[in-house]
């Protein structure tokens, strides 16, 4: 195989990651299987794109985007926006749950202040 330095550095770890997550898909608990599978696919696609850079360009041309790098960039932007929104809504939900807990404790532990004025 006639690899560039970049390919030598990036391709083997990607293959390892793909193998690792592929193995986990088979043996993980069902609750995590979907996440593992998604990661397995991402590593696999990335490995394929590094192995054969022309591949990304061919897919890009097929969907009407000029260059392979542009395709990767667009996918990255979409993934970023998706992730940003996902984590935003997660944090809003977490904050609401936290509020419920803090409120519950505040109401349970409500105390009456001094009945006699001692306000110095």
């Amino acid at each position, binding site marked *: 195989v006639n690899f560039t330095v970049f390919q030598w550095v990036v391709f083997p770890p990607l293959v390892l990651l793909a193998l690792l997550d592929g193995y986990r898909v088979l043996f993980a608990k069902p609750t995590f299987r979907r996440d593992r599978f998604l990661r397995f696919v991402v590593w696999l696609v990335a490995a394929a794109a590094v192995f054969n850079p022309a591949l990304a360009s061919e897919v890009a041309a097929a969907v009407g985007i000029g260059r392979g790098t542009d395709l990767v960039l667009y996918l990255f932007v979409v993934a970023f926006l998706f992730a940003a929104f996902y984590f935003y809504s997660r944090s809003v939900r977490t904050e609401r749950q936290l509020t419920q807990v*803090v409120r519950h404790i505040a109401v349970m532990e409500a105390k009456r*202040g001094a009945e006699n004025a001692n306000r110095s």
Partner: protein
Amino acid sequence: VSAEVEPWVVIAAYNEEPRLALTLEKLLAAGYRNVAVVDDGSRDATAEVASRFPVWVLRHLLNLGQGAALQTGIAFALKQGAEVIVTFDGDGQHDPTEIPRLIAPILSGEADCALGSRFLGKAENITFARKLVLKGGVLFTRLVSNVRVTDTHNGFRALSRSAAQKIKITHNRMAHASEIYDRIREHHLRFVEVPVTIRYSAETMAKGQSSWGAVRIVLDLLLGRVVK
């Protein structure tokens, strides 16, 4: 609702140690016995100051924001059987002697919510910038919540028990004011505006909200609508 009803006064207090004692003294002197102070995770001695007075003291373990603190106080007051709930600022910008006028429309059954309006009443020593931002808030509320009010983000309000049960504040920070208008419209609550005096002083302005807070409010509201 009978005329015998004693209102509950809910105060959301965050770092109000220097101003809270005077506020509570005035409230108690005016004869209000059901007072709930919610210390919203203050870093100063707000809760300790409140504990020196015959009032209920609730503490948020974390600072969550004014909306969250008000909702905690309202939930507590409802649990205690409150028929009328007044929200009151801890920093002394509201006048306890105006409470009877504020709750009158609720006691008479004329309205479910009474909203204090500083623009129908008096805004003492208000700065031009603050006035501009608040008027912008009024316009925003009319456009987005479609409720015709003359003042918005005025913390001096009174709610009937049933209105307080329907208005559940989920916006923890300052956007809760707009949220209240949304609930009023959704539940077809009857509201009146009552002229009140808001006293701006060096202290309240030093502590209070920066006018930039308005930007945060709009962001919270718009983003909050996307997440259910």
